[in-house]
């Protein structure tokens, strides 16, 4: 098989990369573009660790061919922060103790980010449903749900919300 040249748009940056036609988007992100934030945990689209956005929609990059990303805008976890400034969602994860081993975190953030863009004040049930395609083995999900609910929306009753930090 011969390598071919494709043009991608990753985190608002155009890039040119040589790929095999059967390379997945996850492989290209991690191996060719050094964007190792997106992870492989199951390799079959179940765990959500590889979740990225394609034109704003969460997709499984382990089941997406790199070719399919051509002509679309891809956002990865590396594109959530504004330089050194964490997004409200990322900061909320940090403040609420929603990160333990951190392996599921990038995918979890991408799914949550997509949810919040669609529904800025989701209730608990909605959050849990939206995150049910992301498997976490460490946290039991409780603090992840709290972090998503309180992102950019600090609550008086929550000891971990830090308004105006």
């Amino acid at each position, binding site marked *: 098989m011969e390598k071919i040249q494709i043009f991608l748009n990753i985190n608002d940056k155009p890039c040119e990369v040589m790929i095999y036609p059967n390379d997945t988007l996850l492989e290209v992100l991690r191996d060719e573009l050094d964007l190792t934030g997106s*992870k492989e945990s*199951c390799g079959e689209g179940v765990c959500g660790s590889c979740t990225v956005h394609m034109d704003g929609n969460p997709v499984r990059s382990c089941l997406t061919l790199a070719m399919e990303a051509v002509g679309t805008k891809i956002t990865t976890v590396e594109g959530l922060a504004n330089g050194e400034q964490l997004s409200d969602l990322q900061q909320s994860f*940090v403040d609420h*103790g929603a990160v333990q081993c951190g392996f599921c975190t990038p995918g979890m953030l991408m799914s949550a980010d997509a949810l919040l863009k669609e529904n800025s004040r989701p209730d608990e049930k909605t959050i849990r449903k939206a995150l049910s395609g992301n498997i976490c083995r460490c946290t039991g999900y409780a603090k992840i*749900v709290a972090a998503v609910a309180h992102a950019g929306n600090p609550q008086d009753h929550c000891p971990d919300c830090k308004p105006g930090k």
Partner: protein
Amino acid sequence: MSDYTIVGKRMSRVDSRAKVMGKAKFTADLKLPGMLVGKIKRSPYAHARILNIDISKALALAGVKAVVTGKDTEGVKWGVFAYTRDQQFIQTQKARYIGDEVAGVAAVDEETALKALDLIEITYEELPPVFDPMEAMTSQTELIHEDFPNNINIHVNIDTGQVDENFKKSFYIREDTFVAPEESYFQAEPYAVVARFDHEDCLEVWCPNGGPHMKSKPLSNAFKIPLHKVKIRKIAIGGAFGGRSEICPADYICALLAKKTQKPVKIEFTREENTIGTRQGHAMITTHKTGVDEKGQVLARETTCYMDGGAYSSTGPIATSVPFLSMEQAYRMGSVRYNGYRIYTNKPIRGMIRTHGRGFACGLDTQLDMIADHLGIDPVEIRLRNSRQPGEYTSTKSYVDSCAMDETIHKAVEKSGFKEKWGKLPPFHGIGIGTNSVQTGFPMGIRGGSQAFIKFNEDGEATVMSGVVDNGQGNENMLVQIAAEELGLLPEDIHLVSADTETTSSDPGSYSQVSTFVGGHAVKIAAQNCREKLFKVAAKVLKVAPEKLAAKNRLIFVKNDPGSKRCKASKSIPIKKVVRISLLNFNSVNAEGGYWPRVDMKREWVKNPYGQMCEAFSFGTTIVEVKVDPETGQVEVLEVTAAQDVGYAINPLVLEGQFEGALTMGGQGGMLTEYHEWKDGRCINTNMLDYKLPLACDMPPKINNIIVESIDPKGPYGAKEAGMSIAMSAAQGYSAAVSNAIGVYMDSFPLTPDKILAAIKERKAQSEKKEPSKKNEVN
């Protein structure tokens, strides 16, 4: 209560920022110049002699840089203990499970490596396999390991008090058997290894681990290089839960390939490989026989447990003991006989797991509930009548110092409304309680202690060096919190060098639950020693005795004169200045500190299972409320209340996360959905689709975390193990709740819908026949 500034506070973890940015590097994220892709060839047979291996075709494939087999090794057998040396890193004679390592390949890319694996031609002679541990013990076919008759790997025997006499004195005796198949860790990060030999012939390895010093020694032995030339490096780790404690053949194979090629090599496991090629939890068949007096106090107990150990020993002696030890810590049992058998089978290797012995523990607690039922007392009462008290000795003669077991029970009962609900809920709505205890440490011999080093840098900030490893539970943050507290700095002033065997001193490892108790303690002592040096210098400057000084917020000041936010204390000096003055006056600004728990060094898992096991024990109670759908057998968890005596909460935010994660793994998954299925020795649910892990939508909306502090006299700030008592008691709580909901005491775990429906059906049939209740039924 305490006047700590940083310790005891809810604090966001120091490692979270890098993780939310996707910057934290896990093993598979590493790229080194010239790095090759490694792959492992695994036996397709559960039991087979290896007759011949031909690697010529594989070696000839373009892009293949090295192929290794058992011939490249000295065939030495390794074991966690000297008496369990049964595993070669690459098999030379026999494969003992589907997945056993028989060869390794390093190539320029993954596709070439995989093609090369297929080109390795191995001639096997199949041998009859055994998959059932009871069958394995009586099997007449070839032993799995020739030195272990009847395929019995480990036999732990504990016998204390007057068991037989006390059975005779008992008012009521029950004997029940409980079974649970194996479960798996399913760490989010699949196992991976990167290895390279550097220009000084030092071996560098990156891999998920439960203790880097546990990896360096076997590699030092295997490659015959001294420990100072084996550098297990610090790396972000995506969970361990007990499944990454010891050396893995993949570590050795990767290093061997790196040696042969003189290039870095990376091996990444698939999810399936992680499930069958690392460790699993043990399947167990446990029979408890318990005799009580009229009040329900246990007079005698006899427990026999058969554990399916898989093909090699791993941490066999520990695994065979811990399920029993946890229960003897949680409950008084002066007269007890325990026989634990770990049996070889031709299945993947079993190791220690966070919920160790779910069937064992749930069995013992379920039986207590059945006994309580018979005596007309409630489950809380019977636990209080048998619960561990401070100042007692366990039956294997460990002194229990701090213990707030009863407080965890009372607080959980109050918060959950147990007394108002139990026995008063409508059909198929139940509530249950589980209690357990976990040892803060094991006898670890030469690796029982931890030593830390601290150096101050010229700018007044500090670097802390500790062997403690973080698997995701927050150990790095714990060390920084402690160091900052003791040094008088802020957490952001501290850089941590940890879990690196080149620079950090030996440490017991996180899998023994002592990262805080021993590792954190060592850092505390090192920091205090460092502070003392600075105080001596500061005392001269401030013209007061060193004992009058304190350190906080980057200042050293006279106690009771710390100044306010707006103005500095009249007698204070910035730490930065003290460091500079020290260095300019030929004074050291570094210090070390070590902590070794005083345990009985003669205590041994098999030969002498008596004596002080560890210095502290944690105690946990979990109460669960559920609704069961009698049509589908599905369980809806309404509320979980988890209360643990953690000694002292160094960071309540982190602790809550540990409780929540623990009950999810031990209770939600461990009791409702997690188990492995097999066909002829092949695990058929190795991936996340077929092995059901708890999802966000499965978890109850309400989890109550109750932190109980008994302030252990030995633990740093009074802290002990935190989280594992919840993992284990949650399994028991879930089981008790479901049993209560359906009116049947369950004896086979996990409680999947088919089992629940069958139990409901049987109960209905029995009550329709109006026959007296049999076996496990409740009225």
